């Protein structure tokens, strides 16, 4: 059950990154920063300043979204590798802040004493209750994302992804849309961070470092860029796999690296597209060989 809670949180994060990367075609290697900002801000507001957790989550999410909106303008002017490096730099700056601002964040030894979420007398303090809590959020996020992806805005995103110049000529305000999806993506990460903080009641910087940003990227790529269900699949796979790979200890990182490379070379569409394709190939090779163009 505990694992399923993490699958849920990772699904939220992967969907958030996928909205940006898969739909709008903008890479981010610093998304763990927004996750961390959500977690730390919720944690500090509730534990140090005794705010109501729900209010803290709401305020945090809006502040993180606004910050992302503001920095989105200069950052999303960059493209490709430059965007990757800029977001990476941003992620590392935030990570350093978590480690060094010891008075507020507790520094490398972490921040503890975060209360559980609560509705009336129902306290979310067991894995079972947290499971339902997290997955209600995931469901909401999936509904929102699927609807968004199939709306006018979603089509505009895909137009930007495929050909930004053409999209702009057709009257899509590419710059504003990119910044908006960046802010939305950051907001979902922040909510996931708040949930994580309240579920764990203890947070420490390594949960929000560069490696986590990379892990998120791996989930999205493995699941399939531009597919909401792919993000769920990627999150499920990469969260449960380490449980089965326990015997590999720290060496699972070799596995991630290899997986990322193999997937990019051989299955660039991710699992959601690659597996049906594979099936078609296996079935197709026997039946209709002469029909190569179909």
């Amino acid at each position, binding site marked *: 059950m505990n694992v399923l809670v993490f699958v849920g949180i990772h699904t939220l994060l992967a969907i958030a990154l996928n909205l940006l990367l898969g739909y709008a075609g903008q890479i981010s290697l610093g998304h763990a920063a927004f996750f961390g900002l959500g977690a730390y801000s919720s944690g500090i507001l509730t534990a140090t300043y005794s705010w109501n957790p729900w209010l803290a989550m709401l305020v945090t999410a809006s502040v993180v979204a606004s910050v992302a909106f503001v920095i989105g303008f200069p950052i999303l002017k*960059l493209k490709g*590798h430059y965007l990757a490096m800029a977001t990476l*730099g941003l992620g590392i700056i935030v990570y350093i802040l978590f480690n060094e601002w010891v008075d507020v964040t507790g520094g490398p030894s972490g921040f503890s004493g975060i209360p559980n979420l609560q509705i009336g007398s129902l306290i979310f303090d067991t894995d079972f209750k947290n499971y339902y809590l997290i997955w209600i959020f995931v469901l909401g996020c999936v509904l929102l994302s699927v609807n968004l992806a199939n709306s006018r805005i979603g089509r505009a995103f895909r137009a930007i992804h495929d050909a930004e110049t053409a999209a702009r000529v057709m009257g899509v305000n590419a710059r504003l849309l990119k910044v908006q999806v960046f802010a939305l993506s950051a907001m979902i990460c922040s909510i996931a961070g708040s949930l994580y903080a309240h579920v764990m009641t203890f947070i420490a910087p390594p949960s929000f470092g560069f490696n986590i940003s990379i892990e998120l*990227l791996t989930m999205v790529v493995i699941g399939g860029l531009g597919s909401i269900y792919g993000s769920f699949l990627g999150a499920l796979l990469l969260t449960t796999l380490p449980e089965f790979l326990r015997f590999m200890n*720290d060496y699972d990182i070799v596995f991630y*690296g290899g*997986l990322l490379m193999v997937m990019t*070379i051989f299955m*660039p569409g991710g699992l959601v597209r690659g597996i049906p394709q594979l099936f078609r190939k296996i079935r197709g090779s026997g039946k209709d060989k002469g029909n190569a163009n179909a």
Partner: protein
Amino acid sequence: MELSEQLLQYLLSGLSTGAIYALIGIGFSIIYNSTGIINFAQGEFVMLGGMLTLFLLETLELPLWAAIPLAVLLATITGLLFERLAIRPLRKATPISLVIITIGGSILIRGLAMLIWDKDTHAIPSFSGDEPIMLGGATVLPQHIWIIVITIILISLNKWFFNHTISGKAMRACSYNPRAAGLVGVDVRKMVLLSFMISSAMGSLAGIIVAPLTMTSYDVGIMLGLKGFCAAIIGGMSSGIPTVIGGLILGILESLGAGLISSGYKDAIAFIILLLILFIRPQGLFGKPESERV
């Protein structure tokens, strides 16, 4: 110590770390100029330089003069394999898939290094003792002088190679226009391979000469690589003097920041500079404005 002496000390140690950043940054630029790829695995070759030297020295008990060239050779072979196995299968890829594959490669190399060696930090003996030399009130280690001298030699060699050899000129031709270069008989794929080999050789050598000062471990490549990239960005992705100046500026600012402000935030300085340059002058400090950085 007086403030002026302190400043001199910071300046001197900043120069030698800056020289390292410059070498790594030139490695980034060489690959970028011939392929348009930002090689996120660049830092791993720096790590390989240090770790391979350590391995050859301690496990195989080779003398230093034999261990260093052998380590560079092995790292260069790794660079060659990396290009062949990861980059070449993807030649017609999008920038995002190139970012992802080089990240995958860097995780894989780092993980394998952890698997082959261990997670500990190791010291490599200095090239010629640890007797400090007094220099106008500041102390300098012989290793600092080695770093500066080797960097100057490497940069001159690099300059000579690109300006006076047929391969170097062919690589420059590829950076201006690979198609046109191919039409006049330049083997573009060979030049791409060569650029990966040169930059992994340079990176590994940088890793070797800095290891006696900073120690080495399987994960030093991340930070060193990112800072080398920052140097290259300041220099406008040039494979010449501007990137060297970029590296030195970064090294000195870091050393001043660590000494005068706080050593904990030292690493953040590089990334703040990186973001500022990308936001304000994406063409580098010395470059002419371009319409778009893609």
